[in-house]
């Protein structure tokens, strides 16, 4: 049988005690802590090597008044000693002993009951005269004061005395459980066996070969151990890399763009009219510095201006006067479509491009809104793509993200037509959840950039699917709280 080193100590301690003892006694005999003695005495009993017997102890303890009398003596004794000088009034006794009136009056009852004094009513109040047994008591060395001292020293007291002291409020009794442990015969053989066991495998034991002749002790494999936190990636990074992997596997090129963007690339190139509400100060962060951005060469700007004012081929346009100054205004980009539209101005179809990056909205921070978050944008430009290809790319993406049931709802964005919002069905919530926006870029967007093929486009949220996965209710778990407890505990699977 395997024994823990402390179990062996408990057995040895008990042997010193003659095979039986309380946890406190064992602790002392074995030179270990009392809680350890208790825990391992218990484990020995579980192994059938010891028997536990539970006992309830009552421990008397002095009250504050008890402590005082233990130090100063009993008040009735003080009175008796004064009375040895002769008969006296209560008033005088109070003056001489320094007792307070209430205490002194209480003593009258005790003196009378024990027959230590005779009490009469005289002209000046009560008069006291000591009796013969009172005289013996006055000179006795043993009284309640010595009993109080005993209690303080050893906790021992006669039950009769204890009751009297409790009545006078000098002693309280606390009860607590304890157990005695009795060693069984089997313990002796177990301990002999255990001497031949290795507890900690050390460098020396391995080298000396001692382990060959002894047994390696087994452990409580369920025992609790300290927490360990190694290094770890953030769940946003893990999700981001999963998404990068999906688009790269599908043959996309990854791109990036500036966080400080011109209104031109963020809005105008995307055919968002210059008075569009999403360009309001209430929604977009405009900048005090830098003051202005450069917008592209005259050809692209001219084409975009025309698209807004009177339209590209077959289009009416928005029909307003386009202002280049507004397009130069720098902003913090509001979507990563600004990045993919920049890419579109550079590419030659067929091309597939994606980008994952931080975007900004002039929102007040709360559990549902962040002033900055991460978006995923993708485009596919090719002569032969259709609406069905758009749905196909999105379906494939979401399938690889773990969403099997998907539907496409008609939607609206100023820069796409067929616009659709992909929604995934969550079995456990029994509802469709919208996870982004998508569509085919309008000709008013593509033609000014010299692109004459259809371009599929989408913008998705990075945080949304992660929140669904972890059941997070507060979006501030990202970027804002930085809670190490959550980060250390969260599963990355």
């Amino acid at each position, binding site marked *: 049988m395997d024994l823990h080193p402390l179990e062996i100590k408990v057995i040895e301690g008990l042997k010193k005690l003659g095979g039986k003892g309380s946890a406190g006694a064992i602790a002392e005999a074995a030179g270990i802590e009392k809680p350890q003695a208790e825990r391992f005495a218990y484990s020995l009993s579980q192994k059938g090597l010891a028997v536990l017997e539970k006992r309830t102890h009552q421990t008397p303890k002095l009250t504050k008044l008890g402590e005082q009398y233990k130090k100063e003596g009993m008040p009735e004794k003080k009175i008796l000693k004064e009375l040895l000088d002769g008969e006296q009034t209560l008033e005088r006794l109070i003056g001489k002993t320094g007792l307070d009136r209430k205490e002194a009056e209480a003593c009258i009852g005790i003196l009378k009951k024990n027959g230590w004094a005779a009490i009469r009513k005289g002209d000046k109040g009560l008069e006291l005269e000591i009796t013969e047994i009172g005289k013996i008591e006055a000179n006795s060395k043993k009284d309640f004061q010595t009993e109080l001292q005993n209690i303080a020293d050893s906790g021992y007291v006669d039950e009769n005395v204890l009751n009297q002291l409790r009545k006078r409020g000098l002693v309280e009794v606390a009860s607590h459980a304890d157990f005695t442990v009795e060693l069984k015969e089997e313990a002796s053989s177990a301990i002999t066996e255990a001497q031949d066991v290795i507890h900690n495998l050390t460098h020396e034991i391995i080298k000396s070969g001692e382990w060959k002749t002894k047994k390696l002790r087994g452990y409580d494999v369920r025992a609790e151990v300290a927490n360990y936190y190694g290094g770890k990636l953030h769940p946003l990074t893990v999700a981001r890399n999963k998404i990068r992997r999906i688009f790269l596997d599908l043959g996309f090129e990854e791109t990036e763009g500036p966080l400080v963007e011109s209104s031109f690339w963020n809005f105008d190139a995307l055919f968002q009219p210059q008075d569009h509400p999403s360009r309001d100060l209430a929604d977009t962060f405009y900048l005090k510095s830098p003051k202005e951005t450069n917008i592209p060469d005259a050809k692209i700007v001219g084409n975009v201006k025309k698209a807004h004012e009177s339209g590209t081929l077959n289009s009416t346009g928005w029909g*307003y006067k386009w202002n280049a100054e507004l397009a130069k205004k720098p902003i913090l980009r509001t979507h990563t479509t600004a990045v993919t539209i920049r890419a579109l101005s550079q590419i030659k179809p067929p091309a597939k491009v994606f980008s994952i990056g931080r975007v900004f909205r002039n929102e007040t921070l709360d559990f549902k809104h962040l002033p900055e978050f991460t978006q995923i944008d993708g485009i596919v430009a090719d002569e032969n793509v259709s609406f069905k290809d758009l*749905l196909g790319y999105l379906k494939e993406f979401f399938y690889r993200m773990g969403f099997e049931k998907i539907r496409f709802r008609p939607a609206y964005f100023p820069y796409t037509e067929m616009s659709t919002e992909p929604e995934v069905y969550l079995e456990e919530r029994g509802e469709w959840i919208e996870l982004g926006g998508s569509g085919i870029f309008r000709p008013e967007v593509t033609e000014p950039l010299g692109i004459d093929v259809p371009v599929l486009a989408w913008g998705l949220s990075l945080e949304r699917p992660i929140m669904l996965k972890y059941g997070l209710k507060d979006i501030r778990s990202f970027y804002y709280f930085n809670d190490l407890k959550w980060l250390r505990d969260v599963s990355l699977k």
Partner: protein
Amino acid sequence: MALVTFNKKDLESLIGKKLTESDYKDKLIMMGVPLERYTDTEVDLEIFPNRPDMLSVEGFARAAQGFLGIKTKSPEYEVKRGNFVVNVDQKLLGLRGCAGFAVVKDLKFTGESIAAFMQLQEKLATTIGRKRKKASIGTYDLSDLRFPVKLTTISKITKFIPLGGTQEQTAEQVLKTHPKGQEYGHLIEKWLEYPAYLDGRGRVMSLLPVINSEFSKITTSTKNMLIEVTGTDWKAVREMLNIIVCALAERGAKIYEVKTVYPSEKVIRMPDLRPRKMKFDINYANKLLDLDLKQNEVKERLLRMRFDFAGNDVLVPAYRTDIMHPLDLVEDIAIAHGYEKFEPRIPQIPTIAKPNEKEEFANLLRNIMSGLGFQEIVTFILTNEGEEFDKTKRQRLEHVEIQNPKTIDYTMARTSLIPSILRAFAQNQSNEMPHKMFEVGTVVHLDKYYETGAKNITKLIAGISHASAGYSEIKSMLEAFCRNIGTEVSFAETEDGAFIEGRVAEIKAKGEKVGIIGEIHPEVLLNFNIEYPVALFQLNIEKLK
């Protein structure tokens, strides 16, 4: 995005069919109108900005009839000749001189229909009208109104009784004290005189674009009405007028034209509800949708979307102001066809994957840092000057500054990751020690040579915090990191307000400064409410590639 509330009974009687919750939730959503709330008596629907015609219950019912196959083709709305004249004063030209009118007769308002009408006006003025800036709407009971009406200006002390009021007030008082004056007064408060409509007897009909006057107000007993849409943009004015007039016509009201006479003697007759002709090529639709629809199938779908045809040309109703390009018709064909009927096609455009090198490098660094035992954090790029410079006792750099911050917390883009990680340490004071965190994050530096005037820069920060965290520990970690990327670094004494003097060094690679390492100054720690030592290093990783 606009949310409208429709009375179900009213809506369903207009559609001519009783609808179930699932009709709204599963069928009409595929028309592009998500259901936001459903009760026994009402539905809340989200109307997308391209379909302002559906902001009216009548317009929504009209579209739903088509989509559900109850009625097809566009309805014909007749505009009768009339003798109503509005004169526009020279003074308004170029300011708020785009004005469109219609007279509507034989109205039969009920409690429900008048509520729907009010909602429509408000939603149109908010959306297309851009909160009345571009255009506002006024409606007037015709019974006591005298023509010709005049669009002109009035002095600030001109008195009238504002709608809902009992006493005359000056125009200036109305702007200052009336709730609508406070809401919309800013649009005209700088004018020397205020824009207004006066009737033939010189009475103030409305103070534009703030409030109407009490005398011509609309009630359920109003039978005949003048509608005016006035603003700065002709397109918005026409769109709003057409949508309103067509909504009323759906309930059987009769539309009369109004002549607007401009100072140049130019006369404009409105409303103009004639459909627009648009050429349409079905091959274009079939290619984009990857369908093989025949001419009659395309026709069937467009008729259900309430379009009509003149030969092979599509007739676009006056209220469908969103149709700018044949592509918009393609989308309507797709919607009528049913988005759910399109079979997603497996991706098949062959191109070669190419990861962004910067991103790949950042990931390598993340893997090295987590291997060295650091927990990754991802924090805000937005911050404020107090946190960025003052709390860290660092010199103020030129930085990206926000012009219109909503809160004082986010007024700039960060230039360093040091405040970000200090904030994270502060947030974790009660979490088990030791703390080891890192971030690979973007900061933004002003750069006048860069196209947008400010450039993204990627940095790596790594910090440790525990009872005895210090310089030598973080230095050994930095050196371990550098071994892993094959970069040799050297250290030189430097000064930086955030660090303890003599316990901070500049990190150099190939003679160039690439970062900073040191122990954070106790004053800075306390500024962030950190009670344990922090040592950290920050590297500009663009210089390590």
